């Protein structure tokens, strides 16, 4: 894998830091007039999602990370691993609980997700921005109440719990924004 010098650092570059693959979020050149030049860098750890700040002496190098985002379709979970397939190569990938993370609560099957691969292994799974799922458990709907803005918890077929408006009935299919975990609308 290539190495990158601080003067090649730019947003989005994938590098290895402390044995984990990271993406550069921000890179600032800091130099006292008569002193050592530094690059103050914000990096997102691609395994944990955490953003960390590190400063490098200008001219230092980091090893590049073999990281790739691909589109995959969710197949099934065997309880331990979540299985996905690249629909162009038919290659299958198994993601563990750490990699699948919160994405699991939105997946019932056939959703197209983004898998981040590091050295060919999924390290994180992003669900589609919107999913449609059926409500399996919620209090009875309050007819005609579309205006008060109140809400109630609803359990979905995947086990996820979201807040829905009071007029929504048990068994309805709704659309959810997975980035916020919020109810968007009834699914047509």
């Amino acid at each position, binding site marked *: 894998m290539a190495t990158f010098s601080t003067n090649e650092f730019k947003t989005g570059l994938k590098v290895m830091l402390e044995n984990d693959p990271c993406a550069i979020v921000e890179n600032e050149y800091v130099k006292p007039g*008569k002193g*050592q030049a*530094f690059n103050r860098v914000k990096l997102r750890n691609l395994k944990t999602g955490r953003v960390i700040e*590190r*400063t*490098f002496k200008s001219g*230092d190098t980091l090893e590049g990370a073999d990281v790739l985002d691909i589109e995959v379709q969710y197949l099934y979970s065997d309880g331990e691993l979540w299985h996905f397939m690249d629909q162009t190569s038919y290659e299958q990938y198994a993601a563990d609980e750490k990699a699948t993370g919160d994405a699991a609560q939105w997946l019932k099957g056939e959703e197209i997700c983004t898998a981040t691969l590091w050295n060919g292994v999924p390290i994180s799974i992003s669900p589609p921005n919107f999913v449609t799922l059926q409500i399996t458990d919620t209090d009875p709907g309050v007819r005609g109440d579309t205006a008060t803005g109140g809400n109630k918890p609803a359990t979905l077929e995947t086990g996820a719990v979201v807040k829905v408006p009071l007029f929504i009935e048990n068994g309805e299919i709704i659309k959810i924004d997975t980035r916020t975990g919020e109810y968007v609308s009834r699914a047509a």
Partner: protein
Amino acid sequence: MEVETPVLSQASVTDPHIQSLETRLHLSDCSSSNVLYLQTSPEFHMKRLLCAGSGPIYQISRVFRNGESGRFHNPEFTLLEWYRPGYDHYDLMDELGELLAGLGLVVNGRIPYADVFMDATGLDPHSVTVKALGKLARERGLASDNKDRCELLDFIFSHCVVPELETKGIVFIYDFPEPQAALAKLTDSCPARAERFELFVYGIEVANGFHELCDAEEQLMRFEGDLQRRSEAGKKPCPVDMNLIAALKSGLPPCAGVAVGIDRLLMVLNDARHIDDVIAFPVDRA
């Protein structure tokens, strides 16, 4: 007196943290060529004029620093530099303060380097061990392994002290640690402090001044120390300006000098976020 000095020079600055741009001079018969350096500051030529008896001098000039590019850096920029025989760094802070007042910038005060450093870190920069500096630097996110006192001070000052200065308005920081003397005189105290100051405007470094070192022998030793550090760091060697050393030997009058970054001053006056906002054609569009 306003002066004009060459942009191209046969020698360059030895400071390991400042890289000169080089060019080649081809003589008319094409038989040979010499490397010339674009000035990183007009300091050496202006000191030669002072040694020749110019009296107080100033100029606004273009200077060049290789590899410096960022929010506060363009590799080509403009300095206002002036020298006052008979002044020390306190007198020169007074004079720079008057100039700033004329621009509507009122200086809030002067703080010794040791005091701001101590406030921000709890450490005395003049006596702290390299080990303690290294430990603090790692805690504050320095990823490079570093045992150089001067570079660790640079890291901690820029990452821990400068954020504090952002809240202090317009201030002079003076009396720097000895390894950061550059071309400044040292005090006789123990530990010695460098009679150097910097102007910070809401955390932005705008000017750097010295009570100038006049001793030719000590200056030559510092240059040679620089070359040693350059070679240890794997950086290119560069010729020492022996014309400057010869001039210092003939006698530099006791004086103080300061360089003001005009582009940064414009940033401050215009509330600009990036140096590119005050330069018509920054380097990537030049």
